[in-house]
């Protein structure tokens, strides 16, 4: 359970199969996985393919480019730690490679975001210098 009073903003818990994703983010790279059987890329990190259950999916660097699939502007923060960011954009990003991921769209007027808008990955630094992938207008 989350602590509703969590502050500062949370950093992820890293485990063995999500480590390549977070290591990539620390290098400034957005990492996705590709199924060895079907060749299809996917998010989020797994130790087998969700398409054919083939093991050991390939990690690769994504282009970092994508499109806003849907979005909202959040005025009421889910946790106190996000209060200073309000209003912020909470969006589903469709990566150019195909998979979707939820993210924030930073570095723009929140009300300027639209479905279909082109975005590119950027990295937000949280506690202890930890970087998490975010997006901004391309």
């Amino acid at each position: 359970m989350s602590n509703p009073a969590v502050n500062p903003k949370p950093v992820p818990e890293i485990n063995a199969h999500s480590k390549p994703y977070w290591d990539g983010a620390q290098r400034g790279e957005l990492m996705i996985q590709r199924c060895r059987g079907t060749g299809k890329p996917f998010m989020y990190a797994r130790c087998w393919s969700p398409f054919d259950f083939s093991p050991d999916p390939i990690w690769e660097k994504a282009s970092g480019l994508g499109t806003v699939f849907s979005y909202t502007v959040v005025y009421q923060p889910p946790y106190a730690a996000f209060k200073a960011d309000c209003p912020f954009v909470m969006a589903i990003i469709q990566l150019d490679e195909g998979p979707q991921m939820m993210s924030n769209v930073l570095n723009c007027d929140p009300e300027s975001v639209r479905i279909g808008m082109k975005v590119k990955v950027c990295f937000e630094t949280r506690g202890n210098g930890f970087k998490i992938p975010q997006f901004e207008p391309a």
Partner: protein
Amino acid sequence: MSSGIRDKVAILGMGCSRFGERWDMGAEELMVESFTEALTDAGIGREQIQAAWLGSCMDEVNIGKSALPASMALRLNNIPVTRVENYCATGTEAFRGAVYAVASGACDIALAIGVEKLKDTGYGGLPGLDVGSMPPLWWPNLSAPGVFAQVASAYMNRYKVPRDVLKRALAEISAKSHANGAKNPKAHLRNPVSCDTIMASPMIAEPLGLFDCCGVSDGSAAAIVTTPEIAKSLGKHPDQMVTVKALQLALSNGSEGGYNDWDGSYIHTTRVAAQRAYAEAGIKKPRDEVSMFEVHDCFSITELVTMEDLGLSEDGGAVKDVMDGFYNADGKIPCQIDGGLKCFGHPIGASGIRMVYEMYLQLLGRAGDRQLKDPRYGLTHNLGGFPHQNVVGISIVGRYQ
């Protein structure tokens, strides 16, 4: 080949506590409140119940993970009691356990009871579930209003609905539920609220404002089920008997979120579960045949798209139906006649059974000031989780034929 659930199980009695901020009671007392009403309604003693299912989801303050609190609070007679949990569709899961137990012939009389003491969690909405490796990767910035607000954006984009038009329709949905809830003595929120007030309320996640969000409530609901034959032997007249016509559950398989063809403007699993439920109940044209609906209006936009996902409004047509008053208390198909999650309230584990409770009262002509004229079938739609990853439980109940 399965023959479905239709008319195999009758509801012998139901109960529902008053929903709201129940600082006066713990979860155990709330269970006793709904259970005693159900027992009295059923006209049986608690020793006649042979198995029970408890639904609870978020509240681990005084409930815990086993089914012991129900067994102990209700002084059940060392019978099997099972606790189930499936996000906000938990109540329907408890009902499903009891109904299937009776249908299988494993027991004659079974109890489903759902409870949530949500206020004791000390949180304004639903606490986040952010353990494991997926949530930090896929929803690091998620709020419940936020993900449903994303459905609103996708819906506006797909059907080219101007923002002001959608906002007005969403306000009509909430105003209708407030008008209905005002007539329900057990509802949490009992004040009529105007569309102007709703549209002027503080923004939570664009375009959803405060009055687009359902209540956070404490409460409990219970159902006692048996076979129609046993119900008759216990004195229930077939004309005054409500039976289960369909009971379906559909879960996301991961295709909506992550990598898919889903465009974010509807709930896929509702469509799957609804079609299965209509087939099981033998309903061909739900818009003509089903008299009333209790749907999972956690947010006003959820109710709007659910009208399309259930096949009541055409795709892209729900805004017009809402503005025409089609789903109002005096409309063709009343929806949320008891106030819905919006105003009756949403104690997670109880909500699915609360929906069936209202359909049951309406079918038996016991719904007081909000009684509808001669309803035939009632449908409940219970959604747990997020638009892209969820659990949908649907039941259809009606008079025994």
